[in-house]
């Protein structure tokens, strides 16, 4: 019997190996062609890494989101798109296993582990302005079946997913914020692509718009209301795992800068190259980011099963702050690495090239815009008291 800590360590080792041997060598190709990182995701599947958060009794590893953080960072050091797909899958798998209490949904989790199914999400909708807590589309039920249709402006790796967790109003009569999360799966799932994904970074996540049409057994509707799923699981796990992706990007940039400075130093032993001072600053900045992400992972793990703590405003503010801080730090760190590496970092054809890392890093502040998150915190701080 493996302990969760052993399983988490093993997963980091597996992710590191896959990152270096599988994801890294094709990362530029994935980026250039904006194609799905199929090799790396298949390799993760083969290692049964897609069921890391599924409870042991349902066939998974029973890990927590915090325990997954380092594996996500390891992947991101080589290919941020692979890491992001892996992270987003786990935000959804966490939502399924933590909020799908019925025997039917536990069986879906069992299937996930057995067949290593890849989960995507359709939480935003055209016309709601990016607000996850508002849905236009609604679940229609009759005769034990459900049906829904959603205009999704973005479904990350939608075309490659085995199931899509979709938000919708509880019923056609429900107000826009009375939402549920629905597991949509073939054969009752139809995705009609409505756009292309041609972005600055995270190109391998292949996230175009879709019209999603789904129908199936009404037990696919997750029991807990979506506001709880979001508060307890989707929001904290996305902020912890996204930040872990960005930490991996920052680590990759720091690694190039360190290598560059060492090479410079070797050319002229006895003289400390001027860039070494900048490297010292960079390493300090990276340490701050590393500590921030580690602390947030630990904090989430500590209250993982404590619904009261997860519902507190203090926790929500901390997780929102994590997202805003980490997404700002990654751009700063990659920028500093660029100054250190100079032309060698700016070039696309050098071993110190930072172009892809910089482009990916800029995704951090715009995927769920930092201003929206700060506005949420600003509002909560009107009533929140310290301690």
């Amino acid at each position, binding site marked *: 019997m493996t302990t969760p800590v052993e399983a988490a360590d093993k997963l980091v080792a597996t992710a590191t190996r896959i990152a270096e041997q599988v994801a890294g060598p094709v990362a530029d190709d994935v980026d250039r062609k904006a194609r799905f990182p199929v090799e790396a995701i298949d390799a993760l599947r083969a290692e049964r890494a897609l069921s890391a958060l599924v409870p042991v009794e349902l066939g998974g590893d029973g890990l927590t989101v915090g325990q997954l953080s380092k594996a996500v960072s390891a992947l991101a050091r080589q290919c941020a798109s692979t890491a992001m797909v892996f992270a987003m899958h786990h935000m959804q798998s966490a939502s399924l296993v933590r909020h799908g209490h019925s025997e039917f949904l536990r069986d879906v989790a069992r299937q996930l582990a057995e067949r290593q199914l890849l989960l995507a999400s359709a939480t935003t909708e055209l016309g709601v302005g990016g607000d996850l*807590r508002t849905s236009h589309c609604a679940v229609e039920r009759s005769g034990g079946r459900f049906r829904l249709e959603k205009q999704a402006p973005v479904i990350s790796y939608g075309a490659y997913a085995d199931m899509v967790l979709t938000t919708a109003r509880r019923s056609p009569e429900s107000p826009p914020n*009375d939402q549920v999360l629905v597991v949509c799966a073939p054969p009752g799932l139809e995705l009609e692509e409505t756009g292309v994904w041609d972005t600055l970074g995270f190109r391998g996540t292949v996230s175009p718009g879709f019209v999603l049409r789904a129908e199936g057994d009404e037990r696919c509707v997750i029991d807990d209301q979506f*506001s709880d799923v979001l508060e307890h699981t989707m929001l904290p796990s996305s902020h912890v795992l996204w930040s872990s992706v960005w930490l991996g990007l920052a680590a990759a940039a720091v690694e190039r800068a360190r290598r560059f400075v060492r090479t410079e130093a070797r050319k002229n032993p006895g003289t400390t190259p001027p860039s070494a001072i900048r490297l010292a600053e960079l390493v300090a900045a990276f340490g701050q980011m590393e500590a921030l992400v580690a602390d947030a992972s630990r904090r989430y793990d500590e209250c993982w099963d404590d619904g009261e703590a997860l519902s507190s405003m203090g926790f929500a503010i901390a997780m929102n702050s994590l997202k805003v801080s980490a997404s700002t730090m990654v751009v700063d760190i990659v920028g500093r690495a660029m100054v250190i590496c100079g032309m060698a970092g700016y070039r696309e054809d050098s071993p110190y090239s930072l172009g892809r890392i910089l482009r990916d890093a800029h995704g951090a502040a715009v995927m769920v815009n930092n201003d929206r998150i700060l506005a949420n915190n600003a509002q*909560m701080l009107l*009533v*929140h008291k310290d301690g």
Partner: protein
Amino acid sequence: MDEQIRSVLAEHGRFPVDVATLDDRADLYQAGMTSHASVSVMLALEDAFDIEFPERMLRKSTFESVAAIREALTELCATAVE
């Protein structure tokens, strides 16, 4: 107290339905109160009852129904008098 709670809800809860039609135990979030509106409700309640909700009460469950709000306020007002 109930009347005052309901009047705060009517003014700041931005419900798509008439607050008077909501049962004491009805889930206010399911009835359409957004988290944005719930902060306004908290602020207005603090002002109306001259209390401050402590951190431990700042969670969804405290504000999920008229009855839940009443329980929280009763506790806070009792402490205030002591």
